[in-house]
């Protein structure tokens, strides 16, 4: 029985303990983590209920249409829609209501609620942390307006099924998903020598939605796959490789729903994988050379082969191992642990369960509690788990994270949220955590809720004497709760 190892396991590998949970972990903390590294049989019900990618595509499209109808060229747009068989009445409704903006917000609130509630209540918090980790590794950020509705279906369809599976599968799923395609512009990238580029008149109407007629190569996704998803920025590639990979994945796009889908109550039903489409007429023909290897012309299989090879590169193993070690062990990852994790990644051909097992078996991961500073979202989740709150109303959790500096699914760029304390351990953000903890404590504190015993229940022997004393000496249970939730032990893992 090791309560301090249990508390460390719950904090570092999970999202913090719920009251009573430490005892069930203490028998075998390492085994408790490992048992959660397998893929899940089915996603939790609230996640399964989230709309598929096609519906996310429609959500942005509707918002876009309503904006455009009110804009300068609204009249021309109305005429165009009428020609496409959309009734005048539907158009009028859309252009006079701001309902779609609301609708947009409601989608975000519902999806963040599903993500957070799952993390608050799950019995497999170590698995859930991995979902968050990989979703951040393959960032699709709502900062880009066109991708604003996409992150939930992307995370559900491209990330979640492959946690505990193969890295290469996740990489391919991510690259094919319209969420990533829209976020990093690849959906409209066409080869300079493709049929569509040579004979623009052969290009059909691309369904309906934002963006003009594509006419050229866009390097954005190709670059970020190399820099952020696989090799890492020092992974030994050149600008020519960026262009080669971008050319290899030209024509990787998605079926755009017809215009009438943007009106009425039609729901999108297709997942990202079902929506994915390879358009040979947009694909750059011929063989391409990536990292010294030639890929013969082979349609979509050319890109699939290139991604499989990228997943197997030693630089990728090292990059992934470093990121995992930074997330779980320390901001400056111990080199020995990185080596071991990278070897496991390579030996298992990118099996993420084997890779994580090597991490969990690393003594470094269990050596020093509290060296990692929690990001706002994981801080919020750990607080909810400690208080045994299993659900929050739509928007409440996401707003709290935003107020503390991390708007869920809205990282600044495709490199995602920083996994080091520097950006988060600032005066401003620490202050906001305290403000938020106080607002929360005012709601949850009662005379019969003893913050000191909550602290002991969820932190066990890791609760310091100083924190316990500060909590006990507080002038009220409410103040004691703020001190507990703001204590170093609660802010770190």
């Amino acid at each position: 029985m090791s309560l301090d190892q249990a508390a460390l396991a719950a904090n570092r590998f999970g999202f913090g303990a719920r009251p009573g949970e430490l005892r069930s972990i203490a028998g075998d903390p390492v085994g408790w983590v490992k048992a959660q590294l397998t893929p899940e049989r089915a996603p939790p019900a609230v996640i399964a209920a989230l709309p598929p990618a096609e519906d996310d595509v429609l959500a942005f499209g509707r918002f876009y249409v309503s904006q455009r109808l009110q804009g300068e060229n609204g009249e021309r747009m109305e005429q165009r829609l009428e020609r496409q068989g959309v009734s005048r009445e539907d158009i009028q409704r859309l252009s006079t209501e701001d309902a779609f903006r609301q609708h947009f917000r409601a989608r975000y609130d519902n999806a963040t609620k599903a993500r957070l509630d799952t993390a608050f209540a799950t019995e497999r918090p170590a698995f859930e942390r991995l979902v968050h980790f990989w979703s951040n590794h393959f960032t699709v950020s709502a900062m880009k307006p066109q991708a604003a509705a996409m992150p939930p279906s992307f995370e559900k369809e491209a990330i979640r099924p492959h946690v505990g599976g193969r890295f290469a599968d996740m990489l391919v799923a991510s690259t094919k998903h319209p969420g990533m395609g829209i976020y990093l512009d690849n959906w409209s990238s066409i080869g300079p020598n493709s049929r569509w580029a040579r004979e623009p008149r052969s290009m059909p109407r691309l369904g309906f939605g934002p963006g003009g007629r594509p006419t050229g190569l866009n390097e954005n996704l190709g670059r970020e796959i190399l820099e952020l998803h696989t090799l890492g920025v020092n992974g030994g590639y050149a600008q020519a490789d960026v262009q080669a990979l971008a050319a290899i994945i030209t024509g990787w796009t998605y079926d755009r729903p017809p215009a009438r889908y943007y009106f009425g109550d039609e729901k999108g039903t297709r997942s990202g994988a079902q929506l994915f489409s390879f358009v040979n007429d947009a694909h750059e023909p011929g063989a391409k050379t990536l990292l010294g290897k030639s890929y013969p012309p082979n349609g979509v299989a050319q890109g699939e082969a290139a991604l499989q090879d990228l997943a197997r590169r030693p630089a990728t193993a090292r990059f992934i191992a470093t990121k995992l070690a930074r997330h779980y062990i320390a901001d400056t990852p111990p080199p020995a642990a990185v080596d071991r994790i990278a070897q496991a990644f390579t030996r298992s051909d990118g099996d993420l369960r084997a890779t994580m097992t090597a991490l969990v078996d690393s003594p470094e991961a269990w050596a020093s509690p509290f060296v990692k500073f929690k990001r706002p979202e994981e801080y919020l989740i750990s607080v909810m788990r400690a208080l045994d709150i299993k659900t929050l109303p739509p928007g409440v959790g996401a707003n709290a994270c935003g107020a503390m500096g991390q708007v869920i699914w809205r990282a600044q760029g495709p490199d995602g949220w920083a996994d080091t304390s520097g950006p988060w351990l600032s005066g401003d953000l620490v202050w906001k955590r305290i403000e938020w903890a106080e607002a929360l404590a005012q709601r949850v504190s009662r005379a019969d809720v003893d913050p000191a015993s909550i602290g002991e229940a969820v932190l066990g022997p890791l609760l310091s004497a100083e924190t316990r004393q500060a909590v006990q000496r507080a002038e009220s249970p409410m103040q004691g709760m703020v001190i507990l939730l703001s204590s170093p032990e609660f802010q770190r893992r």
Partner: protein
Amino acid sequence: MNLSRRTLVGAGAASLFVPALAFGATTSKRLVVVVLRGGMDGLAAAPPVGDPAYASARGVLAQQKAQTLALDATFALHPRFENLHAMYRAGDAAVIHATCTPYRERSHFDAQNVLETGGVRPYARNAGWLNAALRALPAERAAGRRELGLALAQQAPLILRGDASVATWSPSPLPDANTDTVARLMDLYGRRDPGLATALQSAVAANGIAMDGAGLRAGGRAIAPVTKAAAQFLKLPQGPVAAVVEMGGWDTHANQGAEAGQLANNFALLDQGLAALKSDLGETWRDTVVVVMTEFGRTVAPNGNRGCDHGTGAAAFLLGGAVRGGRVIADWPGLAPNQLNEGRDLRATTDLRAVLKGVVRDHLGVSDANAFPDSAAVRPVDGLLKG
């Protein structure tokens, strides 16, 4: 204004921007750096409408000369830079064109790393040039301050990270924390966690000051509320010597627009932010230099999505009462196909570090080589400032 926070400051719980020593002549010079993240299209911000190749090279992104705000025979400002244009005409703003750091690849993150570290290669060091410059500030200028720099952000950006002590501040949507609770946490952090203790100290002090700025609310993309808050700190006699404001949304790969559109809207927000900074600084404007810079420029030709991709030569702005403005500083390389870098980008003919070194030397009195490593051959630009 918030009394509880100010009371804490007065009680000595923290002393951000409150004189540590009671004596002293201390500098009134202020440097504000506005970092535009994502690669601002300098050819859209300050279009070279007089370059004979301009219209054909830029295609759908070209602006009508008549709609732009004229600077000189070659250059103009985008129509949404009305306030900046007024400053230019008043001699308080200059445009630096065809400029870039020594970075020549096309990754945002690497390029921003170079922009902020002041180095030659990305990830060569983990500290920013502005922090290093503040660290090297002559003792008489640093006197009386505990924090020399301020990031108007939830997190201090790399440019301000390093050994010199800096603070962060950003507007909060949350209700205030209780004063007594904060004091107790300060005590607990002091015993257990130096990192949290330092963070909380600077937060408490910063809040007391920023609340003097009116109407500060979190949210939205406008930066005027942020630059207004910056002004409240900067105009204090012992205020920060330097402040950093960041603004995103410049990575215009698709549908960026020309005289109007996505990018034009961002220009308007930036312009309003600069105007708000000037008006809220009041007398302090006279001693202020504002540098507006980005990590790289964008390709000259539009891409297939009516946007443009990562390029090289960019535009930067210098403004402030201390700036010798009313001019475009550029060794113009031209936009004709044979004049471009790799056949696609505006060449960078002015090393941005030369400008920054000139500002840091003449405005802050710092010539420390550590601020811009490996730049001995890069001579500071002379005469950027008045007088």
